[in-house]
Structure formats: structure tokens, C-alpha cells
């Protein structure tokens, strides 16, 4: 197991370097012209860019980038995104809490509701309860979350006046006012994952409920609910747990549209903005943040299989060859 993990970590580091190099080269290859008609401002911009090394050969820029990242952990400063000259790491750290705030709540709602309704659908398979839940699954999965966002904002926020239309400003994350203003983005973010979890649980549980050992459990005298919870549910949850894990990892990605609609100053829109405005340092720092999360999240997710079900062993060196 240890060797397997070490090997995966080693591969992840190699992958990280390859991705980092590709991203750096590709983003630097994108055209970044000084807009026309700027006269002296254009000249000043060119001079600034020159001082920042934008016109050096890409490999020279990359070596300088690597040196400052790995010797000083200096990811550079904001130029066109965020606050001018603010260190990129500081800027991104200031954005992450807002994204995490709404997404953690969204995930915390999604998992129990997804499990509960998924189980209901499986237990009452092909009955009216299942039909109703399936309708909602179809609606929630087919309709993009920004549509709910607009509907919630219009009906719940604007027409009924039950919640503020935008997230409250400030950093008082534990105040009622902040949570109240976050309810609509949380709900808009929850509907999709709820439906997704419902569908997964329903499918897995439906299969397990028809297994022979469930019949054995019932014949041994367990009630339907006891058999379902003690045996079927535990077995059906194994392939789904990594989805929960990925759900939490995905939290850090944010949601561009939901954050835009509810004016959440999170990290969701930063990536595209940095790419459009050619803020190279912000782009690279954020990219690598996600690359690292993705690569190591993958290792964690794989390890979680073994932890949940001891029958699953990692790195045994066995193949499917006969």
C-alpha cells in the first residue's frame, strides 16, 4: 500500500510538472496585444510588460517563474485582475473563503437529501414515490443551475422578499445576515448534486436490494428496514463515496454563474477573467492550485475505496491476465 501511494505521488508530481509547463507555454503563446489607439498609455503598458519580462523568450520566462516559485514560493503579483500589485497568493486566499462558504453548505445539504430521496426511490422502486422522485431527478439534472438561480432570485428574493438578492458584503461568515444572504446561492448550487446523488443511490441500492443475501437477511428474521440499512445501504454506498469526495474537491472550483448572479466575490470567475485579461501570474497560480487538488484528490479518492471496503486492495501488482 505504502509503495503504491509513493508511486502515485511520484507520478502526480511528474504530471504536475508536465501540466505546469504546458499551461505556461500555452498561455504565453496567446496573443496579448496592446490595444490600438492608446498612444502614450500603450507605450507605458509596453514598458511595464517589458520590465516584467513579457517580451523575453518563453523559456527564459519559465525558468524565472520556476526559480521564484520554488525558491521563494513567490507566485507573482496581480496585474490586470484583483488589486493591482497584490501578491497572487494573498489575492486568491482572500477569494477562496466565499466560494468554500456557499459550496460547503450546498454539499452539506446535497449529501443527506440525495441519500434520503435516493433510498426512498430505490425502496419504493416503480411505485408513485419513485416516479415523483424520478421526475425531480430529471428536472434537476437537465436544467442548469443558473436557471434555478434566476428563478430563486426572482421569486424567493424579489417577489416574496424572503432573502437578499445578493450575498452580503464583509467577512462575518458566522453571522445570521451572511448566512441569510447565502441561502439562495446555496440552494441553486444544491439542486444538481442532490439529483445526482439521488440517481446514484437509487441505482446502486436497487441492485443490492435484489441480491440473494438480502433474501437471506429477510429469511433470518430482519425487518425490511433493518435489512436495507444494515446490509444493502452499506454495500451500495461504496461506489458513491468517491463522488462525495469529488463533490468536496469541486467546492474549490466555485461556480462562475452562481457567483456572478448572487455577487459572490469568490474564485469562480477569476480563472476565466485571468485568462481573458492575461494576468499570467493569477492564471498560473490558480491553475496549479487546481492541478494539485485534482491530482492528489484522485489519489485520496482511490485510497478511499480501500478504506471503505477492506476487500479492495491497492497496488497488489495483480493483473487481469489469464
Amino acid at each position: 500500500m505504502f509503495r503504491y501511494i509513493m508511486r502515485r505521488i511520484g507520478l502526480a508530481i511528474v504530471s504536475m510538472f508536465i501540466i505546469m509547463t504546458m499551461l505556461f507555454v500555452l498561455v504565453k503563446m496567446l496573443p496579448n496585444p496592446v490595444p490600438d489607439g492608446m498612444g502614450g498609455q500603450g507605450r507605458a503598458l509596453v514598458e511595464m510588460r517589458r520590465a516584467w519580462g513579457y517580451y523575453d523568450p518563453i523559456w527564459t520566462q519559465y525558468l524565472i517563474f520556476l526559480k521564484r516559485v520554488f525558491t521563494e514560493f513567490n507566485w507573482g503579483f496581480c496585474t490586470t485582475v484583483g488589486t493591482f500589485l497584490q501578491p497572487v497568493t494573498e489575492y486568491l486566499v482572500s477569494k477562496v473563503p466565499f466560494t468554500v462558504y456557499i459550496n460547503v453548505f450546498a454539499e452539506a445539504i446535497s449529501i443527506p437529501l440525495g441519500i434520503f430521496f435516493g433510498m426512498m426511490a430505490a425502496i419504493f422502486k416503480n411505485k408513485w414515490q419513485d416516479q415523483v422522485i424520478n421526475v425531480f431527478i430529471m428536472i434537476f439534472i437537465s436544467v442548469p443551475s443558473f436557471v434555478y438561480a434566476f428563478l430563486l432570485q426572482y421569486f424567493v428574493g424579489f417577489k416574496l422578499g424572503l432573502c437578499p438578492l445578493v450575498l452580503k458584503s464583509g467577512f462575518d461568515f458566522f453571522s445570521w445576515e451572511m448566512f441569510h444572504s447565502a441561502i439562495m446561492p446555496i440552494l441553486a448550487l444544491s439542486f444538481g448534486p442532490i439529483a445526482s446523488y439521488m440517481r446514484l443511490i437509487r441505482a446502486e441500492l436497487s441492485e443490492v436490494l435484489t441480491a440473494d443475501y438480502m433474501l437471506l437477511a429477510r429469511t433470518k428474521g430482519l425487518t425490511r428496514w433493518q435489512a436495507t440499512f444494515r446490509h444493502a445501504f452499506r454495500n451500495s454506498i461504496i461506489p458513491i463515496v468517491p463522488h462525495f469526495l469529488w463533490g468536496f474537491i469541486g467546492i474549490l472550483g466555485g461556480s462562475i454563474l452562481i457567483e456572478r448572479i448572487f455577487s459572490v466575490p469568490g474564485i469562480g470567475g477569476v480563472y476565466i477573467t485571468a485568462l481573458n485579461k492575461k494576468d499570467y501570474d493569477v492564471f498560473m497560480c490558480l491553475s496549479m492550485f487546481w492541478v494539485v487538488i485534482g491530482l492528489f484528490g484522485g489519489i485520496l479518492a482511490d485510497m478511499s475505496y480501500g478504506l471503505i471496503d477492506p476487500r479492495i486492495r491497492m497496488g497488489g501488482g495483480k493483473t487481469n491476465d489469464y
Partner: protein
Amino acid sequence: MKKKLVAILLVAAMVLSLVACGDKKTSDGGSGSNASDSGSNDAGKKYTYFSTTGTINTLNPCDWQLNNESTCMGLCSSSLYDWRIDFDSSTEWAYVPEMATALPEDVTTEYAGQYGIPADCTQGRAWKVTLRQDACWNDGTPITSADFIYSMQTILDPNAKAYRSNSYTDGQFALAGAKKYATGSFGEAVGRGKTMADVVKEADGTYTIDGHQVFFAWNAALSLLSGSGLKKYEQYVQPEIAEYFDSLVDGRGVMPLTEEVYNKLFEFTSSDAWGNETEEDLINYFYYDDPATAGTWEEVGFLAPDDYTIVWITCNALTEFYSVYGLDITLIKKDLFEANKTDAGGLTKSTYGTSVETYASYGPYYMDEYQEGKHIHFTRNEKWFGYTDGNHEGMYQTTDVDYQMIDEHTTILNLFLQGKLDDTGLTSDDIPDYGTSEFTIYTPESYTATYAWNTDFDVLKSREEENVNKTIFTYLEWRKAFSLAIDRQAFCKTCTAGYQPAFGIVNNLYVYDPETMASYRSSEPAKKTLCEVYDAASIDELTGYNVDEARQLLQAAYDKCYADGNIDDDDVVEVNYHIYGTDATYQRFVDFCEAAMLKAAEGTSLENRIKFNLVEDKDYYNSAKAGLCDLIRENWGGAAMNPFTMLEVYCTDTSNEYGFDYMHYEATITVNGETKTQSVNAWYDELCNGIYSDADPEVRLQIMAGVEKALLLNYHIAPVAAYTSAEMVSQRIILPTDHWINQLINWGSFARDFKYTMDDAEWEAYCKEQGNELSYK
């Protein structure tokens, strides 16, 4: 009993301390209570102007870039002179001293013979401004001329490469010696007045100026190219020459000038592709490094003879109006700027103006809250002289300004309808609902929307696929048909939020004589141009819309194209219309153009054979410049006090119209009785940089109108709409005027001139009464 007494005493002490805290806040300038004579603030009442803004990156006067930032900086600063509504004046506006005590005094004679002012010059080059003595920063530090000097030195600092340094180094208001100082020792030869006569070829094959080595600027900023490097235009350069330059260029974007480099450069600049420049023009591409010629601060035309006097010495002569209009600077607080200096990749920059702690105010408001990407709040700066100087009676009822940074229009509109915002911009989708609301105001803007065609035959031909034709765009008849097929009135109504039809390259806002606010479009030469181009008897009859003629022209274009073998019977004409996005607003533009052309094509050989494709392109200006688009809608504006410089975007390398040869396309114009024919580029040069730059306004109008006519008659551009922004203001706002005044005043300043019928508390209660859903229809 004893316990009760102690409790009572404690409560009393707490109450007293709270009161004391309240008093302290007021004295610090933090409360909304009124201690001023500026009139309209009822004691203790808050009048917060709630609005939205876009991104704010910095409020540093050196490096701000966005209009949002300028607006915020304006709240925290005072200009030397203020532009105000004055209904007693025939023009309905006036300029009055603000940080200054009187209008600027022309002291050119005192400085004649210095700072580049000719010894015999008597007016317009040096302006003395006397400063008021009661101005101070929001912490109470007095403002003197030393603050002005420090601010100017900081903005022009050659080690800072400040984005805003060009305000004082280039253009009409450039300060004497400022460019030289800001450039440092390594700079353009032409910027130091050098010509090819100063370039000496040495025995070793290199070149020098005054004994210093000369460099060719392949990828360094050139004034000739508006700050771009020559490399930006490498598509015009022979590939082998471009590769050669690339192999030699250093980190500064230059290379030593050798005989080989010289010859290759001249081979390119003298080619047809680059407009057959002469050897004398090569000086425009050279840099050299001479520490002795680096400008010093002493050479900069910005002086402080005493603590409350500053003198501006400019490169160009200015009238009093322009000295008031153009000579100003946003001050920088020295201690804060210095404390926040940082090395930004080798440049000396400061994080001044990026947080509450790093910013200072000397205007009517100061920033007291800032959350990046979310919220910014300003409150009254009680230390501002304007609240007590008696010159601002009845102004500044606004006690606070609160901006939320929201991008989503639907959210903004909903917040406005709830009463949470005092204004909202309107889009074309909102106009049917709110376009005629009594709370909607329209503000003309200087921008003109113009369709620009790609007319390069080879490029269009190369993009033609089977049964697709594009080369028909190169026929003048096609482009004229397009111009006539667009019903500009309907276009504005269907596709925009209140834009007005436009027919010329600049709109009605462009003023050629600011003293009288006489607009270019209302001048006789400009009217004549439009009447001739659009074949109208008078300007009032002008519509620019004639489907019948468009139909004939389309048929003629087809016939010619067919006769030339460029189109087949089963070809469809496909127009790739590059536009920023794909949402309904953008799609509407494309659909409108297609419908207009399909209508014009009815009954012709092109009936049902025209198709417009929306191509999403975030960088469509550059795409057009590279010849990748068939059609774009470009928008040019700004500098509305100078219509003449607008020709730059159509007659120089700034032009987006791929295939239009501004170096050779000619205009024939009669000036002072003499008729001359030359390229539109040459006319532009003479008008803005050459012999006609100081000519009589009537002569300049004649040339401008002549060039405009030549450009319009080529139909590679088709102006369609003049920008107008539409917005609604909340029901509690009282505007200072019932009509838009001009581009200097607009509808008045929201902070200074807007009045409120209710304070914040009353407004909140009122909105609640209305169920937080106000009616604006």
C-alpha cells in the same frame, strides 16, 4: 440599594461613553451629521447614493486604467477647476475655481526663452495657478504646492513607467521636458529631436548619435506606432527579415544597428507594403542611450514658485479654456505612497490606493470601506474645504456613496426595483418596459458604431469554400448597398438601448470650438459631406436608407462579380460577422443585418442567397486587423473636444479595415483656394501633426470634412449609430436639470448636484410600504 446605585452609575457611564464615541466619530469626519454650510444636509440624516460599479484594481493616480476607478478617485479629490451647471449662462455651464483661487494667469512672457518656449512667444505656453490655502488631506495635513510637485514627479518617475504618465508627456497638454524626463536615458532618437543627419556610421559598421551607439527598436515602443513595436506588424515584413530581427533582438526589444540591420530595415520600410518610406524616416525606429541627454526634473515645465503657486509650462500653446480643461493632476499623499512602495518586477511601484489604509482623500468624500470585487463605500470628508467655503451652497446633499460590484444585469435591475439602488443602466431588452419611464434618462456618448468590411480580395478568396462567395465584398456596389439597406432608425430601436442613427465617422458630440461648444456635425462642411454622400437635399431629410437603390446596387455588384468570374449561379454569399458574444443581444445585430440585406436582395440574382454567420470573437478588433473577419461593428470615440484626431483610426495603422489602403487611397480637397490630391494618411498627418495642425478652424473643418467624405464614399465603413446610454434613477432622486446639457456636464454630478426627496431611513420605509417592488413603468 448599594448594588442598585452601582448599577445605575454603570449604566450612566456607559451611556456617556457611547455619546462620547458618537462625538468622536463626528469630529473625525466619520458621521453623516452636518457641520457645513453646503446646504442641504439635515443634521443626522443620511443620504447615501447607492449604485453599482465594475472592477476596481487601484485608485493610484499613477496606474489607474478604468473609468470606474476614475469615478471613485473623483469623489476623493478636488480638481483645480470645476465644471458646473449655470443656467444663467447661455451655454448653461461655467467653469469655476475649486482648488485654485482664480482662473489661470498666462505668464508666457516670464518664461519665454526657457523650457522650449520661443523667445518671442507671448501667450498660451505658461500658466500660473494660485492655490487655495485651506485645502488639506482627510487627516488634516495641509496641501501645498509641494504636494503637486511630488505627485507630478511620481507620475513621471522614469523608474515607474506609470500608466498615466502619458497625460503629461503626450498630446495637447504635454508638459515641457516631461517626455524626456519620463523616458530616462534610453529612448527614441526622434523623441530627442534627432534626425538621420545626426546618425553617424562608424568604421566598425555600427552607427552612433553624438557618440552613443544606435539601436533598432524591433520590439520596443515607438511613438510612430502609437506605443507598439514594429514586430507587431510583422505580417507586413518579409518572413526572412522578421526571422533575422527575431534572432538579434535583446530583452529590451532592440538590437544594435549594424549595416546589415540597417539595410534590411530600409528594404522593408521602403517597400510598398509599408508605404514606401524614405531613408529619412528611418530615424523613427531608432533608440540610443545617452545618460547626458536624459531629462532632469529641472527641465520639466512644472514649477512651484512658492507654497501656494504652481506654473504649468506646456509644449503646445493653449487657450484659457484648454488650460482650465486640460491642466490638472490628482494628488498623491507622499507619506502613504512612500510607505507602500514596492519593487514590481524591476519597476518602482506603490500599492497606494489599493485599500482604505493606503489611500487618502482631499475631496468631498473619503473611502472608508473596500472589499475587493464586492463593495466600496465613501463617506463625507468633513475636512474638505468645500463644505465651509461658501462656494457650494445647495450642493452635496449626498452624504455617502455606496457601490456594489455586481456584473449581472438582471440582479442589478431587481435590486433597483426593490429600492436598493439609486440607478441602473438599461439594455435594449429593458427599453420596451422602461424606455419611456419618467425616471429614464438618456446620455449621448462620443462613440459611433460603424460597420467595417474586409475588402482584401486575396484573403477573401482564400476563405471561400464550395458554393460560398466572399469576394463580392470587394465591390463598392455591395458595400454601398449594405449601407443603404440598413434602416438606421430601426436598427437603433431594435438592437440598442436608445442609440441614435449616425451617418458620419464622428457624432454630434464632437466639438471643434469649445468656447462656443460648436459641434463638427453642425458645421457647414460636415453637413455638406453627409448630404453628398447620402444624396440628401438637406441634413434634415437624411435617412441613409434606400432599399430600392440598395437593390439596384446589389444586382450591379452581382453582375460585375459574375462577369469577373468570381461568383457562380449557385453560390451563397456568406458574411462572417465577428462579434464579442453569442447571447440574444449580439445575435440581434447579426439578424438585423441579414434581414436588411435579404430584403434588399429580393428580386435580384442574390435573392435568398445571402447569409450572415455570427462568429464569437473576444478579440474581434485584432482579428479584423489580421484579416480574419468579413465584417465587424467597431466603436470609436473619446476626446470629444477634438474631432480631427478621430481620423487616426481610419487613416493610419490603427485602422481595422483590412484591405483598405489608407496610404494610397486619395482624397481631393480644396484648401485656401488650392486643390490638392493626396492619400488620406497624408491628409491626416498634415491636419493633426503637420502644417494644418495650427491652422484656422475653418480650414481644418474643410480638410476633416473632405477626408470624411472620401472615407464614406469608399463604403468600407458604414456608420450606423451614435452611442447613447440609458439609465433609470430612483424615485427619490431629483435631477438638477430636465435635459442633458453637454458632454462636460451631462445631467450634473450625482454627488454634487442630485437632490433627494427622502433620506435613507425614509426611503427604506417607503420601499417597504410598496412591498419592496417599485413601479418604474
